[in-house]
């Protein structure tokens, strides 16, 4: 059940273009251990800017 809720939460956040922060941390740890990853708030702002900055072609009619 909690797995289902977790997936639902992930899906809802992904619908508004917010990827999973833990997956980002995992990626940074595995591939760029020398770099300091963004914290949760920086990550949130970075993704917000990237989704709505206008470079993504907008949404559909």
């Amino acid at each position, binding site marked *: 059940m909690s797995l289902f809720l977790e*997936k639902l*939460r*992930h*899906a*809802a*956040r*992904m*619908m*508004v*273009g*917010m*990827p*999973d922060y833990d*997956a*980002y*941390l*995992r*990626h*940074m740890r595995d*591939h*760029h251990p020398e770099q300091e990853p963004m914290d*949760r*708030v920086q*990550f*949130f*702002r*970075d*993704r*917000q*800017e*990237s*989704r*709505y*900055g*206008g*470079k*993504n*072609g*907008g*949404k*559909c*009619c």
Partner: protein
Amino acid sequence: MTRHLPWIVIAMVGAAALSFVALARGEAINALWIVVAAVSCFLVAYRYYALYIARHVMRLDPSRPTPAIRRADGLDYVATDRTVLFGHHFAAIAGAGPLVGPVLAAQMGYLPGTLWIIFGVVLAGAVQDFMVLFISMRRDGKSLGELIRMEMGQTAGTIALFGAFMIMVIILAVLALIVVKALAESPWGMFTVAATVPLALFMGAYTRWIRPGRIGEVSLIGLVGLLAAIVYGQAIAASPVWGPLFTFTPVQLCWILIGYGAVASVLPVWLLLAPRDYLSTFLKIGAIAALAIGIVIMAPPLKMPAVTVFAAGNGPVWAGGLFPFLFITIACGAVSGFHALISSGTTPKLIASEAHAPIIGYGAMLMEAFVAIMALVGASILDPGVYFTMNSPAAVIGKDAASAAAAVTAMGFPITPDLIVQTAKDVGEHTIISRAGGAPTLAVAMAEIFSHVVGGPAMKAFWYHFAILFEALFILTAVDAGTRAGRFMLQDLIALAAPGFKDSKSHAPGIIATALCVAAWGFFLYQGVTDPLGGVNTLWPVFGISNQMLAAIALMLSTAVLFRMKRQRFAWVTMIPTAWLLICTLSAGFLKLFSSDVKVGFLAHAAKFRAAAASGEVLAPAKDMAEMNRIIFNDRIDAGLVAIFLAVVLAILFFTIRTCVAALQAPAPTAREIPPVMVPAE
């Protein structure tokens, strides 16, 4: 054999339901027949046609690394769970289009629209989304413009980019027009929509400083605020002080929207755009799910005839015959070119395995077609008299209940003035006459369905304004996001001539491009709002033509890629829908330009007004010579626009044929895919 057995049963159920829908005459059939027919057809099409395309046409290879694996960065390129990505993709493709087009198409009866949505999506729309996703997925998630440049050359890419910008302008104008039509003279609706601005600003501040990143939390707060705005909107609208303050004429609303678009698109994204997108996205998904459940519980009978007299053309909602205009009126839901921009946008960068492509590319589009079917059902459960009262222009049916009832009854759809007044009263509006644009009609239908399930007739007015709010909210989000996207497209285009224009360090190019973009869609919005025939009449076909042309371009790219992969044996999969779209859009565009019927042809309409103006005569709806000249000018602009779309699509057709011929002559595959070798992620 046994594994095919359940599918054979589904196919038989679908065929039975579809033939019942198509052949039933005389008595009202239940809406569930259409739903069952559509769902069974979609399931079978997915199981057999989508998987056929995946296995034989594309030869998807689950072991081949996708961009999300190859270029994983935890940000843009993230291997994402299949169902989560399905939600992401569906939320990005489904908007106002599949809700509005089918409502407008209902003037010909429910049958033509139903058949076009089902066959269109299975053979064209879903194929297009799926193919573009496939092509982009094999090329690091590049965008449609870049893909056309890679496979068909620089010139073709630039032409396509220009076409996409023009389409964006028309889409924004049409969407804004729908909001104007829904909110004009409606203080309750206007108040609730206006309330979303301070609400979104508060949410923006909340996610910026108070609790950063708490999207779920802030969306719940926003939802409570929205519901409160709907509830209090009734009192505001009734108040002698506040009511008039929120009552606007269409022209006033047009200027408000243009000003709003200009300001909103230069504000920081976290302040207004992002929080409103959270609200509109979740509300959209929730409302679509609720509508599906509501239709199943209510199981309403369809009151609209299967085919009306207007299938022959000359309908009051939009002009033109079934062929080709039905096929451009329902664009989104059957086949939508705009999806090619989404399928080559974020989705290909998030897909975890090629094996997921069918459900995301083909499946999500089937889901959108289902939304379109629900919209069509919604329009068809209304009394046809109410439907035509709401969707006919005031120039045809007049402005008061008595004249509208007489005119609509004369069309063959009996309605009394009392019913018109009562329907407006039920949904808490001053009037329902000539509320074209699809949104108000759908809102009345949703109020009918929702109030049947929750709250009874007393809740109708609440649900009507809930539906208006839900549509206006995501249209405003699209206007804002679209203006930003249009600005960057324009900057890219101008930079081809003046390279300095792309410079993101100085503010001037951005502001100039934004202003140009707003002015462009604002021009068409103003033209639509002041159009005596209601605007939707003129702009929706232009939008449909442009959207279908983009679809034709995407399918031509897919055809060229199949030829370059040396899979031309299977290219019929994309060539059949391409041919159909070219036939529909070219003939619709040609009619819009050269038809001698003044209701259809822009040039004929201009000629009629010019002849009258030359002899000093003022034709209704113009009131003076200046208005006469404006009508002539608008007609010529519209004609020019359609001519540009025709030129763009013919140019791409030329490049496609050239590419295919060159590919046939080449001894080996020439498609520029990223080779399937595993490159370690950075």
